[in-house]
């Protein structure tokens, strides 16, 4: 079920009413309802893949309980390996089997050895990368004795499959989300109000901005070999805005719907394009995934508490694996690797946290130095997005080659829809100190009502543009 579908527009109010009016304050039933709703939500796409969520949940539930009872290090390691094998095995099979087989055959072909390609027609289960990582964090945290396992099977299953963030995150930590399933939720007006605003802003970003930019990004990327360099710049700008609006829009709706049910899930985006260096960008972009990789990949490898060479290795591995997490294609690997390369100088200069505040804090506009920093960071991200969006590495290089040709200085063909490329950053700039731009309590009620109505009308006007699925569903 898509957040931007009529199905969800009917589904969610029914769940909301049942949740708060029929079984209000009965914790067990609230969790049971969430679990049922989550399985319906996921099964709407393909009920057969519910078995994978069920399998992941039962394995980690049992492993978690067992880990708590055993002190023997060897046995604990075996138990953790079972969980890792089960979860990463499923992920590897469904997401990477064909990729690895093809890559293996191709690399043998380079050596002159011909192998038979035996690819399988595998459907990628929606959201598998998200719930796999979420449930993995549970067992790893228990293994590290940072978390106590739960005996409440309903609560645990509901935590793994919690529908607002099941298919595209944020990837929640058990430490934050699971305890919320263990205590009675009661309706808080301020939370619900903010939840609705989150949903409205998320829908606006997805339906009005992301889906509009998608039309032009797709068009320009498919005709890159004949387009002018200036048009290719617009193409990658459109994609940058598309992927941000699409994914952060999803996260906003997820956070909003969770809030409406009395849950607080983590922030996933913090205006990433207003970053002054790549380290800051990664603290603001897909926060739940970046911190996951930091805690479960980067730090266990030694993190930054080792020699320079090892630090560089750790950074490159972490970023490359995070690229591969996005999809079974060398383009994602290249994208991750490139970001790793961007990160190394900052790390070597020990300036990872030099921009931990808000850009131009307390000021209306940034100064010249900040403008240069913002522009250069954005430029680097744009270059990386070319690899992310291109169907293969060769196309990415051809795209860049053509973009930086003489035609870069020709006037591009501008479309009225490009106005969204400006409107979104303008709105976000002036609201960058807020959790989301619709935190507008200080405005007069009539002005607020006008803003809500304008956004709702825009969503209505744009909502039939192919009803596109969220990009991150495929990851």
């Amino acid at each position, binding site marked *: 079920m898509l957040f931007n579908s009529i199905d969800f527009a009917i589904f969610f109010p029914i769940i909301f009413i049942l949740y708060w009016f029929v079984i209000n304050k009965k914790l067990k039933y609230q969790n049971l309802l969430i679990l049922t709703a989550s399985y319906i939500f996921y099964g709407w796409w393909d009920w057969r893949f519910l078995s994978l969520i069920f399998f992941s949940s039962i394995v980690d539930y049992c492993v978690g309980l067992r880990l708590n009872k055993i002190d023997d290090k060897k046995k604990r390691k075996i138990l953790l390996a079972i969980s890792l094998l089960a979860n990463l095995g499923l992920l590897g099979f469904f997401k990477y089997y064909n990729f690895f087989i093809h890559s293996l055959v191709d690399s043998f072909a380079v050596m002159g050895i011909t192998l038979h390609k035996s690819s399988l027609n595998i459907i990628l289960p929606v959201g598998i990368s998200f719930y796999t990582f979420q449930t993995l964090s549970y067992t790893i945290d228990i293994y590290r004795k940072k978390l106590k396992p739960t005996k409440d099977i309903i609560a645990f299953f509901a935590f793994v499959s919690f529908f607002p963030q099941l298919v595209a995150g944020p990837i929640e930590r058990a430490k934050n989300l699971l305890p919320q399933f263990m205590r009675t939720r009661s*309706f808080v*007006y301020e939370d619900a*109000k903010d939840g*609705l605003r989150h949903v409205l802003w998320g829908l606006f970003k997805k339906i009005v901005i992301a889906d509009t930019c998608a039309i032009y990004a797709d068009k320009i990327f498919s005709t890159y070999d004949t387009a002018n360099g200036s048009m290719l710049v617009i193409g990658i700008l459109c994609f940058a805005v598309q992927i941000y609006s699409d994914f952060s829009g999803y996260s906003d709706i997820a956070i909003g719907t969770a809030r409406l049910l009395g849950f607080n899930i983590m922030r996933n985006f913090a205006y990433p394009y207003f970053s002054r260096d790549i380290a800051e960008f990664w603290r603001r972009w897909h926060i739940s995934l970046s911190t996951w990789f930091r805690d479960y990949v980067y730090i266990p490898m030694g993190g930054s508490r080792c020699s320079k060479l090892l630090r560089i290795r750790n950074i490159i591995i972490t970023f490359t694996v995070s690229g591969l997490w996005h999809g079974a294609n060398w383009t994602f690997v290249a994208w991750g690797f490139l970001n790793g390369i961007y990160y190394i100088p900052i790390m070597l200069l020990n300036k990872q946290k030099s921009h931990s505040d808000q850009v131009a804090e307390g000021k209306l506009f940034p100064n010249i130095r900040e403008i240069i920093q913002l522009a250069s960071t954005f430029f680097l991200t744009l270059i990386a997005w070319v690899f992310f969006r291109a169907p293969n590495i060769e196309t990415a290089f051809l795209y860049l080659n053509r973009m930086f040709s003489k035609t870069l200085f020709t006037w591009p063909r501008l479309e009225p829809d490009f106005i969204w490329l400006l409107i979104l950053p303008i709105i976000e700039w002036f609201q960058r100190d807020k959790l989301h731009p619709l935190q507008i309590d200080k405005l007069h009620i009539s002005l607020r*009502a006008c803003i*809500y109505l304008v956004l709702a*009308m825009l969503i*209505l*006007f744009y*909502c039939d543009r192919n009803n596109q699925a969220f990009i991150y569903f495929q990851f």
Partner: protein
Amino acid sequence: MKKFLIKVLVYSALFLCVNFLFGQLLKLYRTHLIEAKKFNPPIKWEEFYTTEAQTIDIVFIGSSHCIRSFDPAIFDKITSLYSYNLGTPGQSPTTSYFVLKEVLRFHKPKIIIQEISFRGFSAKNQLVNGGYNFDFMKISRNKLDFFFNGFKFSESLTFLFPSFRFRNNLRYVINYLYTGKKVKKSKEDTYKGKGFMSRNHSVTLDELKNNNIYEKKAFNASKLNKNRLKYLEKTVNLCKENKIQIIWVTAPLPKITISKIRHGSKIYPFFKNLADQYRVPYINYYADKKVKFIDTSDFQDTHHLNRNGAKKLSTDLAKRILEYLDN
């Protein structure tokens, strides 16, 4: 919770009101902004309702091919009866069924000519073609049936959101508010009365060959919309119940256009087979060579007859249906 629900309700009501008012503004495009009222559905329904009850003998239903092929004036002259064309752009068999039911509320026709075009069974958009009729029908039980059965649930929902339904008119309305100019349609395209639209223009060979909208069209019997086929059968049954002779007619297409449709040769056998099954007379003007239509003088575009072509077809068809009247 109470405060939250009240606020949600107030905002929802406000949103519905704004959407409704704005939608009405956008809707005006269809009746007020097209120059010389060339958008025919509201005109033909208005004329239909002002026609004296129990006077219409022959009714034409179907798509734009119906509107532009069957000239009631010629039929009236040859048959000495009263005919009326209720074809509308893209009218699907589903919509035709409810149009016919609306006709039967006021009239007892002797003959129904249903125009059969394979695209009416494959085109997805029921909302637009259905809306062309639904919006201008009088409130009745039939209209309610049309609303609940003629549209998919998601399509029915859009009636609650006129701003969404008529969103494509926004640029015309803005243009009108800004420049004061109405939307111009072809000067030659004129409403001739009784639902018939006509145009003198002839299509060029270049347009037929190089700018033909049928270029990528294909006929695939297995992909025809089953629900629409069901409504075609329902229309036949409705006529039988009311002892009305129904005749299926497929309007001619330019030879160049036919040659561009993939598996075009399968269209006639498919509908002929269906007609035989339902015992409905079927005339297909591009399979039937009795009347010769010339690509560059009888068609206004790649698939519609012009005034000349419509005259040829109407004269022939009117003569042919005389035998059904005699029986």
